[in-house]
């Protein structure tokens, strides 16, 4: 089975939403700023619930935030 990585567009989406800070996003999602930082740096894969919450904050579909890239 091919392996892949989860990439995300959170940094770009934050920039497009009035340069939203990590803390603001964290408060809206209900996680800590450190978790948003880890997700953004692709060092932590969030649960489906948190992924959907992030997409909801940016008013986009989950595929526009997270993508699974097969290497």
């Amino acid at each position: 089975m091919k392996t892949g990585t989860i990439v995300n567009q959170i940094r770009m989406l934050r920039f497009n939403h009035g340069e939203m800070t990590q803390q603001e996003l964290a408060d809206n999602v209900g996680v800590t700023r450190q978790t948003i930082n880890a997700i953004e740096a692709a060092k932590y894969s969030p649960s489906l619930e948190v992924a959907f919450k992030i997409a909801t904050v940016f008013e986009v579909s989950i595929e526009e935030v997270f993508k699974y890239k097969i290497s």
Partner: protein
Amino acid sequence: MENIMSKQELYAWSSLGMTLSIFVFYILIAFGWPEGVPDYSSTAVKVFFNLFWIAFIIEIFLDASENKKGVDKDERDLMIEARGFKNAYNFLSSLIAILIVQVLVSKIITGMNEWFTILSKPSFVLHALFVLLLLSSLIRRSTQLYYYRKDY
């Protein structure tokens, strides 16, 4: 801003400091300073006494402080906590199993060797259990800190 620690990470650091201090105090009280090594016991006591109080004050402060806007603990903290508990549990359960076998073996062959008599004494088993508890707590906190620091 990027590297400011979360509340849970600060908890892990303060708890590690407190447990380490208690561990050193216990070893010094129960077994004394090792022979053949220059005696720095008073310095060690001073250092770990200060470490204990600093960690204690940080923990009190963290308990008292409330995060009004955000959350203090989320799914990532819980996942890291679970990894810490897993490692601590594996360490503790395997070493307790070894301790039980050791007690049983030393009871059987107690007359053969003086060393086995010492190992089967209840005071030795109690010391060993307490040291294992402290070590497992150190492993738990160290694992948590490893995963928190790994992200940066």
